[in-house]
């Protein structure tokens, strides 16, 4: 048996053990000390989004373009039987338009709005102590007010309420769909 085969078997055994352990252990106390976030990329920059500010993650949704002078509005898409306007997070964060725009999130709240971004990197759970307020000099954008700061990286957290506020300022209230 080769060395690679031995390593693969060890990894498989460890995965099975961890899977079994997750169902055998009691629920973790103090779960409220952790925050769930979605790791995304806008352009080539990494960002994070609080999971509790999102009601769904989707991919490869058909977006129907709408005529209008609001460039951030890409169009409309159907989510679970509802028509939701889709906005470009790149444009809203000040990036130039473009990219694949394959991924979408549905923002939690009364107003149903979907945002597109370039890449979805996964779900991450970080201790709340790792989330820090945006320090002056790290980013000048009002859309980023917190960052995930670990020993190895710093990832800005997109402040979705500000994004929603920015959309509301640009779009007449009547055009926004209420839940």
């Amino acid at each position, binding site marked *: 048996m080769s060395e690679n085969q031995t390593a693969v078997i060890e990894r498989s055994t460890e995965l099975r053990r961890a*899977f079994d352990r997750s*169902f055998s252990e009691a629920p973790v106390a103090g779960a409220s000390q952790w925050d769930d976030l979605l790791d995304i990329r806008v352009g080539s920059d990494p960002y994070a989004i609080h*999971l509790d500010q*999102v*009601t*769904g*993650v989707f*991919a490869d949704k058909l977006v129907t373009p709408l005529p209008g002078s609001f460039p951030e509005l890409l169009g409309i898409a159907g989510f679970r039987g509802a028509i939701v306007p889709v906005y470009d997070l790149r444009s809203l964060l000040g990036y130039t338009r473009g990219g694949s725009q394959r991924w979408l999130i549905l923002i939690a709240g009364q107003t149903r709005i979907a945002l597109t971004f370039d890449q*979805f990197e*996964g779900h991450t759970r970080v201790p709340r102590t790792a989330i820090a307020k945006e320090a002056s000099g790290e980013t000048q954008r009002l859309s980023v007010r917190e960052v995930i700061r670990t020993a190895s990286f710093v990832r800005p957290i997109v402040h979705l309420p500000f994004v929603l506020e920015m959309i509301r300022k640009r779009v007449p209230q009547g055009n926004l769909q209420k839940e």
Partner: protein
Amino acid sequence: MWTFGKKIAAGFAISFALLAGIGTVAYRSTVSLTRTSYSVAHSHLVLETIANVLSQMKDAETGQRGFLITGDDAYLEPYRSGRDSVEKLVKDLRELTADNPRQQKRIDEVEPIIAAKLAELKQTVDLRRSAGFEQARIVVQGGAGKRSMDDIRRVLEQMDLEERDLLRQRASEVEASASGARLTIILGTLSCLIFVSATGFYLTHSLTSQIGSVVRHVQSSSAELQSAANQQATGAKEQATAMNEITTTIRELLATSRQIAESAQRVSQIAEQAVSAAVSGDGTVDKAHESIGGIRHQVDLIVNHMLELGKKSQQIGAVLEIVSELAEQTNILAINATIEAAGAGDTGKRFAVVADEIRKLADRVAGSTKEIRSLIDDVRSAVNTTVMATETGSKSVESGSNQFADVATAFKQIADLVGTTTEAAREIELSTKQQTTAVEQVNVAIANVAQTTKETEASSGQTLQTASQLALLSGELLRLVQSQASA
């Protein structure tokens, strides 16, 4: 323009003609003078003979008178001498005057008178001796003897007169001939002298000018000849030097040719060995060609297997894409389940645990999928690299096979060429030997040429010396001609 020979010949011809004319005239005058002189002498002889006839008749009469007077026989001596001589003298006189009819007629006339006188003398002598003086005196006194003697004197005197007339006539002819000869000689000599002088002056002037011109040309040509001879001598020296160098080079060439002949012989031997090696190598090439064919077949199999492996890897990649897509969808589903569970409050916490585990599994599947994709990419890359390398190797083997076929063909050609080379080496060996022989002959010929060149060099020096002497002689001749001309 007349040549020197013509001019000189014409001068001499005219001079000869003049001399011939003068000589002819002088000869004719001399002949005439001689002939006239002979006639004068003849006339003198006739006169002398006439005088002798008369003298002998007188002597005979004188002896007859002395004997008649004395009766002494001693006085008869003149008588006998005269009697005996007269007859011969008359005969001579007849012969001397044979060309003169008048004189012949007179001789005919006087001859019987002389005979009668001699008979009268004999009669009286005989009477004196037989009858004595008186009888003889009677006969003498009869006067017959005296008349005869007078007739003889008369006829002889006529003959003498005629001869003397002839003598005077011939003397005047001699004088005329001598005068003509003298005049001819004097005038001819004078005219000849004038002509010769004029001709000499003309020839001298003409020949001097022409010879001077020619001599100047000769002098110029001599100078050119001297220069040419000098150049020829220099060239002959250079040629001699060059011939020495050529001789040395030919000797070196001879040595080189011998070395080449030896080398060609060795080349021939080596070529024969090469032919053997080529024949042996031809079999080896055939075996190697078969081996390369086997290698090409194996390489083709490897390529096919690797291409099949690449196809399988692509299929695995396609399936893995499906797995990755499922993992991604599972992950999305788990995240959405987590979100829904969070929205369900406390009742959703347990579901949230399951959803979280599903999400973790989806993440792990996604990670494993990435690893597998990476491994498959490595495999596909390795397969592609192997296929490319194998195809390259196949092409190399194909190319090598083709090249080896070319090599085999070339090797056969080489073998043939080596055989041809062997023949050529043998021909070269023979040719080189012949060339060596030819070079030896050339060496001998070059030695002869070198000897000839040395002789030419010596001859050139002699020519130069001769040209210099000719130049000096032409200069001296020109000075002579010009001095004569100026004189």
